[in-house]
């Protein structure tokens, strides 16, 4: 079982991710806000699908926490509506594997996720 953490507050996207990932054989855990996501990051994950605008904080802060304080190199795929250059640049500076924007294709996301999870 490969556990994946999904940090997403939008009900629709969370549902899509849950269905898509479960069908692909992952164990999905959804955190809908900053506080619960931060707590969840303490556990071991095969990968993290991260939204940036979540209630209570920024996904980038969570990423910072994961990379700099927990010092883990868990594969992180950002899935965000933010299309601005600086958001992408900021995320990449913090070390994301992929930056995907919404609207997204679940098939595409799964393909990329597979690449990173498999290589671990």
């Amino acid at each position: 079982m490969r556990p994946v953490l999904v940090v997403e507050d939008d009900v629709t996207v969370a549902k899509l991710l849950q269905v898509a990932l479960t069908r692909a054989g992952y164990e999905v855990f959804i955190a809908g806000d900053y506080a619960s996501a931060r707590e969840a990051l303490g556990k071991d994950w095969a990968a993290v699908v991260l939204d940036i605008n979540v209630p209570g904080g920024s996904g980038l802060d969570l990423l910072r926490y994961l990379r700099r304080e927990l010092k883990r190199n868990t594969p992180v795929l950002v899935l965000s509506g933010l299309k601005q250059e600086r958001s992408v640049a900021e995320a990449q500076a913090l070390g994301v594997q992929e930056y995907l924007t919404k609207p997204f294709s679940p098939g595409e996301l799964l393909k990329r996720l597979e690449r990173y999870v498999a290589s671990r």
Partner: protein
Amino acid sequence: MNLLLDFLFLYQVVILWYFALLNLFYALFAFFGLGMVARYARELSELSLKDLLEREAYLPVSILVPTYNEEKTIAHSVRSFLSLHYPEFEVIVVADGPKDRTLEVLKEAFRLVEVEWVYRRALPTKPVRAVYRSLVYPNLIVVDKENGGKADALNAGLNLARYPLFCAVDADSLLDAQALLRASRLFLEDDRVLAVGGTIRPLNGAVVREGVVEALHLPRGFLEKMQIVEYARAFFMGRAGWSAMGALLIISGAFGLFRREEALRVGGYRTDTVGEDMELVVRLHRRAREEGREYRIVYTPDPICYTEVPADWATLRKQRNRWHRGLWEVLWNHRVMLFNPRYGRLGLLAMPYFVLFEALAPVVEVLGYVLFPVFYLLGLFSAEFAFLFFLLAVAYGVLLSQLAVGMETLLLKRYPRLRDRLALLLLAILEGLGYRQILAWERFLATFQVWRKRGVWGEMRRKGLESA
């Protein structure tokens, strides 16, 4: 003797007309305000907000956070400001010569390093001792300066701000994640907009987790509950009404968004008044009108800011005293606008209203209560009549307050429990029976303290919110 009686009779007549006009105004605000909020609620496209957030059309914002002695809460507050959902903004914390460990707390929490910073000192302020940047958050700047008061701190922040818009907040303001988005879009959609104010709601009693209001519960304290009703009325029917009429004079210091260049042009905040937030807005109005420019200063009904309100009488009275003195100071400083057609609705409607019905109202009210027994003893009216009249006045006020509670019911984030709703409706009754009178007394006193206490914040500010 006859002369005295005639005079007293005339006085009664004047008071009656005063009351009638005052309530006509209340009715007007209620009408315009409710209309404005209802229209806003039905027309705002949430989809358009989402689009705005996600694309390159936005105006970057500098958030100015003046702070004094707030070592216990400052790290938390700043972190919540840094978490706002907005593509590009900076947070400038101005530590106004704090006597406690505010600065040290900031240095630790955000890994600050001192930098030699070159910037344009467009506004004169008390000396800046140091400028710090954060190693963790590139958009955080902290300024350490000599104590000069809130307005001075804001001016110092303004000097350092680099973005076209700035947002003045209180250090203990809790902003909604979309606060900047919802307020700044008004600037984007209309070039003429100079300033935007939002709705402030009391935070007391709310369940807050990581800077997000998770649930709204009525606080235990009677005073705190009263202020919930009071704020609802002040914003949804006061500010909304004035904004709809194009004569908004007040934007709260707890949250206001302004065009930086405009604020600099009028000289920033005045440091010799306690009403610096209102004073800036009035000056923006004035300058634009004097230059004959088309402009807008508007209010957005979205509840985007929460703040802790005083929970005990002493703090509340000091706060209201300060507000009232601030009001008098601003009105006095800009007395040239009074009844002056050059200033349009502001001069002919808003300023006179604020002088007669906001600033002077407590005097009239208190005198009324004092003279009541006098008139009765002189046999100028029957007790029954007076009692019914008083009851009507209270009932009318209750109606308006309940309308405001009704507006609050339309919010998505409202006090959810039905019994809380009932409590608020009942509190609206009590507001007119005791609460207002006590505050009217405090404002009455404040009217006579304006000269002595010019520009003085009083102990309340220094204590900060330790009581909270």
